[in-house]
Structures are given as C-alpha cells and as structure tokens.
C-alpha cells in the first residue's frame, strides 16, 4: 500500500536526480559514529609521591586580634559521672586563645595541589573523656580510619552532622567497643555531637590529601611534605570563620606564614 503511494515520488525524484546529479556520490551518511574512545581512564591508582629530600614545609601561627571572649564553664550537673572527673567545671572550648594566639583552628591546603595522594592507614583517635571530646578539633584524610572511644563510665552517642558525607548516630557505652569510621568525601569542620550531653562538641575535617594541621595552644602549626608549588592555605575556626593566604614554596623550602582572626 505504502509502496504504491510512494512510487510516483520515486520516479520523479529518480528522474530529477538523474538529470541533475552527476557525480555527487551520495554514499553512506554519517551513520558510523566515531569509534567509542577506547582509551583507559586516567590511572586512578597512581598516587602522587613527594621525594622526602625535596619536600617543602609551611609553618605558621594563627593569631587572634582583640580580646578572646571568656569561655563559660560547662555545667555538667546533669551528668554527675563526668562532673566528678573534673576538679572544677571545665570551660567550653569554643574560642581558646592565649597571648593573642588562637588554638583549635583547622589549617589546610585549600587549593594548589595536583593529583591524588595516598590516604594514610594510621587511625586518628577521638576520645570521649569526662564528657568532653579529646581533641576538640581534628582532621583525617578521606578514607583514613577514625577511631572513636568512650573512656567515660556513662553512655555517649556519637552523632556527626555532615552535609556531603553520610549522617549517622550511634550510642557507645562506657568502655564499649570503639566505633571505627572512614569518611568517603572531603568536608571541612563536620560538627560531631553527643545528644545526651549537649555541651559536647568536636569538629572533624576530612581532606582528600595529607596537608593539614590544627593550631596548638601557642597558635602554631606545621604542614610538612609538600611538593613545590603555590598554595592557598586556609584556616577555619568553628566560631570565627575562615582566613586564607597564598604561599609559594620551592623544593625543600620552608616558609613561615601568619593568619589572623578577629575576635569580634
């Protein structure tokens, strides 16, 4: 049926093409798409290695401009088990500074690195002791094990509140088995809390390379083992926001930097 309908069409077109087309070889249309690229994906297991002899170091201080607010003492009366573990009520660790130097700032190479770095297999330890997280700020590499323990007589629950990683909330009895976890994605300053003891707070940063540090009591930090290059170094504080600066290091070079937060 359809063939008959279209016969006159063929004739017409046939004649016309005969009259007009001489040599424009119709041939195959572009039906054959290019061969699918058969190349392998960029070698995913190739980690960047830095020659220890050439590794650069960035050290520095985190300063605090202005008066650090006095930290209120934590009221642990709801948990006598923990209260008893402290001589006097411990202060909250939100802003800890002395002599204008800021503790507990997370410092990391925010950008400037190329390639992937082997995750460390050494577990990082987070302990709950006297109803306080120790340490208050810590960091792991993506895929590096974080081991959480409870050294208190009371039960805690460990509740990280990430945005790009998976949220979970597990109870852990005093002296119970450690909770081991590896974060699969980079995320800075994930709050970790205990719902049972609302004053407890820790911040875990997950970084996809090993170049990070947390400022110590004198505000100092050290990032070792860097390949030569220009990097953006960022310091992040739970309360005071973030500060960043750029630094260029050559092979085996050591640079000292300063980042300053403002207390207000």
């Amino acid at each position, binding site marked *: 049926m359809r063939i008959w309908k279209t016969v006159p069409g063929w004739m017409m077109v046939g004649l016309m093409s*005969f009259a007009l087309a001489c040599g424009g070889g119709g041939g195959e249309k572009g039906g054959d798409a290019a061969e699918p690229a058969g190349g392998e994906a960029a070698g995913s297991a190739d980690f960047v290695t830095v020659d220890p002899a050439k590794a650069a170091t960035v050290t520095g201080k985190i300063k605090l401009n202005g008066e650090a607010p006095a930290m209120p003492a934590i009221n642990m009366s709801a948990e006598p088990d923990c209260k008893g573990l402290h001589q006097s009520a411990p202060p909250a660790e939100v802003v800890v500074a002395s002599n204008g130097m800021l503790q507990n700032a997370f410092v990391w190479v925010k950008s400037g690195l190329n390639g992937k770095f082997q995750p460390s297999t050494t577990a990082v330890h987070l302990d709950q002791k006297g109803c306080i997280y120790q340490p208050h700020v810590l960091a792991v590499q993506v895929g590096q094990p974080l081991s959480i323990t409870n050294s208190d007589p009371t039960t805690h629950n460990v509740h990280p509140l990430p945005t790009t990683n998976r949220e979970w909330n597990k109870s852990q*009895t005093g002296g119970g088995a450690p909770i081991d976890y590896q974060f699969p994605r980079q995320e800075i300053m994930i709050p970790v809390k205990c719902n049972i003891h609302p004053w407890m707070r820790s911040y875990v940063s997950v970084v996809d390379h090993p170049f990070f540090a947390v400022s110590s009591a004198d505000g100092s930090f050290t990032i070792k083992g860097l390949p030569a290059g220009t990097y953006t170094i960022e310091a992040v504080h739970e309360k005071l926001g973030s500060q960043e600066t750029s630094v260029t290091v050559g092979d085996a070079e050591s640079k000292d930097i300063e980042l300053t937060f403002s207390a207000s």
Partner: protein
Amino acid sequence: MPKPAAPDIDPVVTKSLSVPLLVSTLILTLTLVWGIYDEVYAMRPWKRFQADFVELYSSHLAKLKPEQAAKEKAVKESAEYQDLQQQLEAAEAEARQRMEEIDKVVNRGVTPRLLTARQTFQVIKSEVDALTYQIEVASSDSAKQSLRDDIAAIKDRDVEITLVAEDGSGEITTAPMKFAVLEAEYLRLQNKRVEMQAERAKLLESAGQIRAKRDAYQANQLAGLNEQQVDGLIAKMDNFGVDIKQIHLNDSDWVDRCESCHLGIREPVEIKAEDVGGRAEFISHPSPDLLKIHNPDEFGCSTCHNGNGRATRSAVKGHGRHKFWLWPMWQKENVQAGCQQCHAREVITEQANVLNKGRTLFLNKGCWGCHRFEGFDKESDDLAQVQQHMSIIADQKSANEKERRESIAAGDTEQDTDKADALYKRAELLTLRSAKLDAEYDALVVDEVSLVQEARKFGPNLKEIKVKLRKEWVPVWLKNPHDFRPGTKMPEFRLLDDEIQKISAYLWQNAIDGKLQAHPQGDAAKGEELFGTRGCLGCHSMGEGDDTQGGTFSANLTRVGEKSNYDYLVRWINNPADVTPDPETGETASHGIPVMPSLRLSMPEVRDVASYLMTKKTDAPYAAADFMDDPQMAKEGLTLIRHYGCAGCHEIRGLEEEGRIGTELTLEGSKPVERLDFALLGHEAEAEGWYNHKGFFERKLKDPAFYDQGKVKAHLEQLRMPNFHLSDDDITALTTFLLGAVDTTLPEHYRYQPEDDRRFVQEGWWIVRRYNCVGCHQISFGGRTSLMGVPLYQDPDWKEQLPPQLYTQGARVQPDWLLGFLENPALSETDIHRNGIRTYLHARMPTFNFSERQILKLSQFFMARSSQSMTYVAPDMEPLTATEQQLARQLFQSRAAPCLKCHMTGNPARDLRATAPNFLTASSRLKADWTYRWMLEPAKIAPGTAMPSELFRQDGDRWVFSGPLPASFSGYEKDHADLLVRYMFQLTPAELSRLVAGGVQ
C-alpha cells in the same frame, strides 16, 4: 497520372530509437535501484540504529565484563562468602558421599534386581491371570475347580530366579522362589527404590538451601550484574535480530515502536551516553523506578511521552515534532506533563517534582481565582456534590415514608392476616431503611458544615482593609505589589493612575469601619526572637535579596510595618479567625478557615511579635490619598473592580456573587492550537518554531501582555491577565502542568483514580499543600522544609529544634490520638501556650482551625501513607511481672542507659534540658510495634534523629541492651527491647516519679 506522393518518412524505420530507449532504460533502472535502496535502507533508519547499538553496546559489555568479574571476585573472596561457600562445600561433600552410596545401591543393586524380579513376577502373574479368566468363562463347576487347582499349582511352584545382590556389589545368587515370596520381594524393592530416591532429593535440597543463601549474599553485595549475567547480555547482542521492536497494548490498540531505536531503555545495565559513544538515543531510561510501576509492556511509551509511536521513518516523525502531528513529544523540561493526564486528581504525584511545583503554584499563586480548573475548586466542587447527595437522600427518604404510611394504612384495612402481616413487615423494613438514610444524611451534614467553613476565596478579605491597613498604602500597593514586596502572590495589574485611585476609593469606602481593641506596645526585641524561633519562618519570609530567610508560602514581612495597624496585627496573630464587626450593621468579614493558624502565643508574646513587626519598615514617603474618600471615584471604581476580576480572589462588598473572569483551563492543553490567541504574532511564532502550546504558555506567563503587541487598543480592551513576575523555573513548572491538562484519549483504566486507601493520600495532599505543612515538617522523602534553610537551624544544636519528620507518622501514632492532636495540639484545654508533646521545641505546632472533615482527612492521609488503618486495636500486651518491672526500672536507671537524659519526665527543671517526649504519653499515643522498631534502629525511621542507634544488639533471636547490664539481668532470657516497650506502655505517673527519684542523677 501524377506520381503518388512519396510516403512520409517513417521514423520507426528510418531513425534509430536506441538512444531514447537506452536513456529510458537507464532512468527506469536507476529509479528501481533507488526505490529498492529507499525501501530497504533509507526509509528504515532504525536498521542503522540497531546495527550501531549492537556494536556500541557489545563493546561496552566487553569492557564491563572484566570490571564486573573483578567485583564478583572481590565478593567471592570476602570472608562471609567464603564461609557460606565452605558450608556449601561441606554440605555437598557430605551429600555426595551418601548420594554415591545411594546411586550405587539404586543403580547397580535395587533397580536391576527389581527389573528381574518384576519380569519373572509378571510372567507368572500373566499365567495366573489367564487361568483366572478361564475360571470366569468356564461352564461347569468341575472345570472351574480344575482351573483353581492349576492356579494353586502355579503359585506353589518354585521358580529358579537369578538376582543381583541388593547392595550393588554385583554378586549374583540363584534361588528358588514361590510366587508369594516373589511378589513380596518385588513390592519391597519398589518401595525401597522410592525411599532412596527421596533421600537423595533431600540431600540435594539442604545443599541447595545453602547455595541459595550464598547466591543471595553475592547478589546483595555485588553492585550490578555478575559475570554470567553480562555474558548473557553479550550473547543476546550476538544473536540480535534486526527488526521493528514494537509494544502493542491490546486493550487500547496502542502501538509504540520507540524501542526500535531506543534500544537501551530497558537494559538491566545502566547505559550512559558516554558508554555508547555519546549516543544519547541508546541510554537507559533515566528513572527505572518509574518503569517499575509503569511497565512499558502495559503502559507503552507515547502514552506518557507523546509523539507518534508508530512512525519509524525518522526521529522527527517518531517524535511527532512537526506541524501535522497533534501530540508532539514533550520537551525534556516538560516531560512530566505526561503524568498529569492520568494523575489529574492529584496535587502531589511522587517522582514528578516539576509537575508538583506547577500544580502547587497554580494553587498557591491563586490562579484558580480567575481560571476554573477542575479539582482546584475542591471545597465548592465537593460541597455541590455533598449537597446533591443530600437531596437524593432526602428524596429517597420521603418516598420511603410515603410507602411506609401507605403500607400501614393498607395493613390496617386488610382482613387477611397473612397479607396484613406482609404489609406491616414491609413498613418495618422501610422504617429501618429510613433510619439508615438518616444516619447517612447526618454524616453529610457534618461534611456540609465543614465545606461551608472551608470554602474561601484565595486572597485576603478586603472588607477589613479599614481596620487593617494604612490608607495611603493602598494605592501604592495597587501600582505594583512587586515593587513593595518582591515575590508576593498579588500580581501586577497594568492599572492607570486614575484606575488605581478609583479602585482604592471603592475598596476603602466599602470596608467595615470596626473598632479594634487597643493594645499596649510589647517588647520588639523579644518579639524578634519569638518570630525567629516559634516557627513563623516556616511560611513567612523576612529580609530581601540574599538576606531573605524563611518560606515563600506566605507574605514576606520585611516592610509589614509600613502598611499595618498595630492593634490589627495583635488581633490577627492572636487568632486569625477573629473578626471585628461593623459598629452600625454588625456585619463581619468572614475569613472562612484562615490559612494562617494560631500559634497559641500568650497575649504578651503576641504584642511582642506585633511590636517587632511594626518596626519592619523603610522611610519611604506616602502621598496623601484624600481621593479615597470621594464617593464619585468609588462609583467608577466598582466598574473597574468588576472589569479586572478582583472579586475572583478577594471578598469585596457588593461583589459577593461575582464569578470568574478567566478561561477555564481544565483542558487547556487539548485546545486546538488555532484557538490559542497568538494575535498578531502567529506568523512570527510559526517562523520561529514556537507556534505550539508550550510556546504560547511560556510567553503568556512571562509577560501576560505579550499578545497585545502591535495592536492598537483602548486601555480597557487590552489583555487583563496580571503579571505574576514568575521565575523561569516557575514558568516551566506551570507550562508543564498546563501542557498536561488534556482531555486524554487513554482508556479510563490508565487513569490513576484509586478508590482504596491511596485515595486518602491523594486527598490529604491537598490539605497538606493548602496549609503548607511542608513548611515545617518533612513529609515526603527528600523534601526540605523552609525552616531547614533558615540560618539559625544550621547550628548543630538548633537542628534538634526542627519540627519532627512525618515520613511514617501513621506507623508511629495511634489514629485516635492523631485526630485529637490535630484538633488541639496543646493536648490540654487550659495549659494552651505550649506544645502538647514536644514542649521543649521552641517552634510551636500551631492550631489550625481545621474543620472536622479536614482533621479526618489528614489523619487518613498519614495512616494511608504508612499503610495503616484508621481503626487501631491496641494489641494485648503481656503484663509485666514484679521482677520484670524491677529489671526495667533498674535498666532505665543504670548509667549505661541514657533514656532519662533526653526524655521528658514532667519535672519542669529537668524538662528544660529535655529533647524527647515523655514516656507517659507512649501508651495513648504510640503503637507498640513501632516503638519496638524505633528503639532498635531509630535512624531507619527518622534519618538524622537525635535518638542514637545501636542501643541494642542481637543475641540469637532476641535483642539485648548493648551496654553493661545490671547484675539482676543474669538469667533473664527475654527480649530487652520488648521488656522496655512493655514497661513504657504500662508506665504510671507514680512509677515514673519512682524511676526519676532513683535515677543516677
């Protein structure tokens, strides 16, 4: 004689025709070749697609195979798999040994022995049978007797029979046997063979169970297909048949050949474009979940997507993207229009977010104020239906009554007792029927009352503007509401200045001039805190531009202080259903059931919030508006108000019965494109390729005056549709909704019109959307509430202050409790300035002035969504023994169990720190099975909950508390979670205070 004229030259003879013939032949041949080429190849582009697909997909599978094989290997090397594998091997080895024994005995012993025995037995038996027959046909008793003797002789004869040993050892024995012994041996062997075969099957079964377990483990652990399955697909491609792939729906004779080219749609491997050389036509369906509930073999393709499913000559024809096809395939961004045609009853359809947004916009921007759209007028449509039903019942009843009276009258005069009795019985039956009708009628009266309350216009009641608004603000607002309040639902009418003045004058002079109660000022700072934490931001927003926080459902209040009257705000916040009567006539402006709920604030709190809101203003100047008192202006204003259809959304005095001014849009997507008024732009639209519904809707929504372009018209003859200043996403969503608003040609049974519990879900969503429950609660998966976006709630501590998730609310609470809670969320008649359950939440579950019908429908909604019934019979609970009570109390009080650190106990000082409800409410509120599941794994019910997981661990088939247990638990063999549930559900206030008093703190 003249010479005869020479004959004309005969071209046939004199001229060669070879050239024209050759040319014609060539033309014909070429045409034939071209025709064959066209028929076989050019008009069948799908052949090329199929060849390409086979090649591309095969090479993708070839690449996939080693990947999957590696994954499979990893799974197979895992400890769990190995363990199962070893179990399997052990079971198989054990089975193999026994099976070999069985096989040996059966194949080499029992079976050959049985065969020999049977053969011999049958020979003898046939002799006996022949003689037995002869006995029956024998004529004399003596002959019969002789035959019987013969039989006995045969049976008594010893037959030499050579049999192999039964144990399969191959040993052969020859022994004489009598018939009876042989028969017994034959039957015994037969039974033995059956028994042994059964044992063999059983051995296979136990190994098979372990194998099934192992395979299930592998399937669970392995992402994607295993190697064998990939091989299956490769083989399928190797044997691929190039032909039309067609779906034929028998019931509707629907034919779709889409899969002739889109070959990867239903492949079990997810195919992405980059897997098949960037050829997007070969990818898998982006939503396999949708295909699971709409199996293409039952639903087809073009049923949802539109296009011409039969066409195979080109993509353009198949997709119907040309002007001769009335149902072109939806563009990608509007693809959910396809859902609307069958899901027309719904305001929320799962997995159709764009469409849902379109419907919600239609509902919440008030489009239905001017445009009727079936389903969006729920209250008045339902009311009409209810009233119709009521009148039918009334008619039935009066007919019943009449017949009843007549029957009684006839019975009274009937002489025949039987007949009289039948008449009286009839009357009695009718009485009962009427009683049933009465009950039905009364239920409808409840609905009617509810629906009358519920029916309200979309916008605010303008009869109250005099008590509510600053006079000078009215004309400023009318000029362009979006200048004053960007994003407001009130659209911009293109009013001339004198029109604004006239309309303002009419509205002002026709408002109630009531006397509001005067209130002292409150504390604005406290008000600000309350505004930010009580939950106002679930619906309202505050701030402009990037600083905006809160929901877009209700007004942005950044400049509310410029327009409002303080005393009115106090009245409104305190109780939005309140009215102020006109001092002269007593007339009030009814708000129906206001969308704004009462937050049950105390009066000082109300004043604080109102005082705060009054501070929200700029110092923009307002010109005096004396014209608003000019009666002449008002008179002219009435005509304009009617012209612009203001009464479609607002209650306005004198226009109470005014109808809608817009076109009905229920079937707008089916309207022939010629009937869409492209005005002077039709040719341009055709040239530019937007002469279709999508093009029309998008431009009209973007700029409602668009089709006035190029026309010279008087102002009042111009297009009236106002500008809603919609975002592009909003326009796409609304266009999708309108495109799907079609008079579908699909058979009735394709439409989603369930009459079971799923109906409750459909109905409930309308109420949920109308009152914006989703501003505070997560109800559907992945939904984000307005509060979740507010900066305050980003703080880890405030996250716990978010209102509860309601994903599976119906499984959690008892239906009767829910009814009561929705009616009165304070759960108290006296202590109302608080939450009934979660008193620790700053955000307050408000009291909506729901009608009875709405409360029922919402409860049904939550129950149906969790597959729960509205009737709940609490299961019998095993009573706690005195010991168990002791145990449970000790566990609760132990250091390891943190329950009382978070859960409220009724002690006000402690409850300040609480973050979870009081256990005393459990037995009347919760379902015990839910509570049990909740304790074991709360994160599986409410992801992100503050309640921790892993409080219990599995121990055999019971759950035990995972921390250190009080010593008294030794020897207690029952389930600990169950113990705590029973304790909780049998908790008395006295026991609770004992519990708290003896606790660790």
